[in-house]
């Protein structure tokens, strides 16, 4: 499985994403710089990691979404290369138009950093196939702009097409519509999610390893 982790100025979860991919899939990803205009070939998976690209200037992910590398990534997405956007990566994907909707300021205005309970809303994807449908999991969240919003028509479409990947349960930390924590594109080859699966892969760092299944899913789907 050939994967890449993109680094923007201000990204800070790139090494955790690299480590999760390496440890769980056994394959070493490559790092890509936001100014690269070509991608490695072949490439199965691109990860847009968490962080504060461009200091969240203008809007979270807004400037990163206009980086030189994003044109190549959009073309790769159109070809069916699988893309995982985590937290700031999700924000970048919506700003780039690769996923619908937008991530707005948390309704509480507070930055929420905690272990959050979620449910796997749809396990029918290369990202979630190793989870059971409706499985309860816990991932870390750490965000100030995680409130997923979109127009009523798109929301209805996401629900009807079963493109909600994860939903917050117990409490909604940011006020997102329909408790949405992550969504797929139409072909389910792109996943954007606010929680951090790459932070729950190691028994040394917490009570859960619920993030492991996301990476084993990808390994199983992409080889």
């Amino acid at each position, binding site marked *: 499985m050939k994967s890449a982790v993109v680094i923007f100025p201000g990204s800070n979860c790139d090494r955790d994403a690299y480590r999760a991919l390496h440890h769980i899939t056994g394959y070493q990803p490559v790092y890509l710089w936001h100014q690269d205009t070509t991608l490695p070939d072949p490439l199965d998976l691109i990860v847009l990691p968490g962080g504060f690209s461009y200091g969240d200037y*203008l*809007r979270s992910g*807004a*400037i990163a979404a*206009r980086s030189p590398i994003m044109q190549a990534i959009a073309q790769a997405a159109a070809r069916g290369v699988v893309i995982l956007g985590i937290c700031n990566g999700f924000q970048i994907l*919506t*700003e780039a138009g690769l996923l*619908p*909707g*937008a991530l*707005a*300021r*948390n*309704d*509480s*205005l507070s930055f929420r950093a905690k272990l959050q309970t979620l449910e796997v809303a749809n396990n029918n994807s290369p990202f979630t196939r190793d989870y059971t449908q409706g499985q309860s999991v816990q991932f870390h969240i750490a965000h100030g702009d995680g*409130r997923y*919003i*979109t127009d009523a028509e798109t929301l209805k479409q996401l629900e009807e097409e079963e493109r909600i990947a994860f939903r917050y349960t117990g409490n909604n930390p940011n*006020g997102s519509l329909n408790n949405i924590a992550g969504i797929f594109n139409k072909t389910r080859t792109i996943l954007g999610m606010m929680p951090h699966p790459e932070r729950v892969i190691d028994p040394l760092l917490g009570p859960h390893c619920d993030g492991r299944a996301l990476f084993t899913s990808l390994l199983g789907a992409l080889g």
Partner: protein
Amino acid sequence: MAQFHATITVSLKPAVLDAQGKAVEGALHHLGFTHVSQVRVNKSITLSLEAASSEEATAELRKMCEQLLANTVIENYEIAVHA
């Protein structure tokens, strides 16, 4: 070519919750300004640009708003051009 100055005001669409606006409204009420409502906190971007005319400047600014300065999924923008 002439030099123009512009002020772009970016605001959340009316249907979108402006959590900041709500917080500011609450604080104003606490201070005794109880007859205030519909508080929105908007963004103001100022810039200079060279263009052949005010119309050309406005057209350029519209493109800038659509492409970067506003997220048209959730934001509106208003352009004001001064000579």
